[in-house]
């Protein structure tokens, strides 16, 4: 048997499909997507809203505070929140890879997307957690009691390090294995092919 003998069963598989079932699935997709067409990705909204809230709250603090320590801390937090919004929106961390690309290119883009995510999560201490933690710690030392300030600062640092640890765990448990799998898949498109193995496709 050769590969051409399988054309008839392949066409049979297509003809045997349950048209009514497919139309029913398609109608579910249609109604779901009509809602999606008017929505932005939920995670983007949450991240941007959270950043907006932080900017508003700490901007009010900036205006109302009467000591330079609180002022400095609030400025750092506001700048950090703006920087986080810029990074999230301009690195397009959550953007899906277009599915209409040629398969080899789609695979490559998926690897690039995961690499972007890994880079951001590995450096989350510098662009996300660190600046916010720094601003909060500075504001903590506006308190009268040094002990209270130290404890507050310690709690902020502990929380920040916990968030950092969660992100590193996500990299190790999810993103790196996914990257490995994607790289293997991409390699199947790049296998070294011998020019002596020629067959006629048509």
């Amino acid at each position, binding site marked *: *048997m*050769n*590969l051409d*003998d*399988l*054309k*008839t*069963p*392949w*066409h*049979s*598989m*297509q*003809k*045997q*499909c*349950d*048209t009514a*079932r*497919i*139309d029913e*699935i*398609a109608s*579910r*997709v*249609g*109604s*779901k*997507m*009509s809602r*999606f*067409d008017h929505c932005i990705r939920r995670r983007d909204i949450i991240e941007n809203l959270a950043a907006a809230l932080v900017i508003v709250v700490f901007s009010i603090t900036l205006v109302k505070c009467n000591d330079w320590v609180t002022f400095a801390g609030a400025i750092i937090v506001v700048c950090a929140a703006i920087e986080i919004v810029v990074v999230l929106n301009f690195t397009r961390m959550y953007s899906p890879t*277009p*599915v*209409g*690309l*040629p*398969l*080899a*290119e*789609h*695979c490559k883009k*998926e690897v690039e997307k995961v690499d972007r995510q890994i880079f951001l999560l590995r450096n989350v201490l510098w662009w996300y957690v660190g600046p916010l933690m720094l601003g909060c710690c500075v504001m903590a030392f506006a308190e009268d009691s040094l002990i209270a300030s130290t404890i507050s600062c310690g709690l902020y640092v502990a929380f920040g390090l916990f968030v950092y640890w969660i992100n590193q765990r996500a990299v190790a448990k999810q993103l790196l294995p*996914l990257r490995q*799998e*994607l790289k*293997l*898949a991409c390699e*199947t*498109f790049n296998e070294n*092919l*011998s*020019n002596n*193995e*020629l*067959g*006629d*496709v*048509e």
Partner: protein
Amino acid sequence: MTNPIKKSEFDHLLQRNRGRLAAIAQAYSPGDADDLLQEILLQVWKGLNSFKGESNVDTWCYRVALNTSLTWKRTRGRRRNNLPQVPMEDAQLTGNDDGQDAVKLLERFLQTISDTDRALVLLYLDDLSGIQIADVMGLSESAVRVRIHRIKNRLANWEAGDQ
């Protein structure tokens, strides 16, 4: 409210390609073909917004279906080396030439090859030209020819009971 133009475009695309999309879902995920098919149709719908007509829309739809199927398998935690092994006796065609046996044989053979080769085989079985297959896969025409040749050899060996 659904965009009526987009709905109409989607419906026409579905009418022309429903059998093919369902068969692709079956080929890649026999256990949950309906779920995969739904995901494929979802991606087609979403992708219609960004399709600019740079290629034939049916070819584009084929790419969407295959990319979605490949991603589906990854997100479902399946790996190439966990593909079920076909028992040797099942690799033989029965003597009565029943169409259903041939379909089952095709399904079994598809499960023994890699996801990439499976995509290549489906495109070949759909009578796409070498140029069209290369366009969908993102490979050169010569690479497509060599791979098809290898797959043909593999099929012959598989049928002969070679593991």
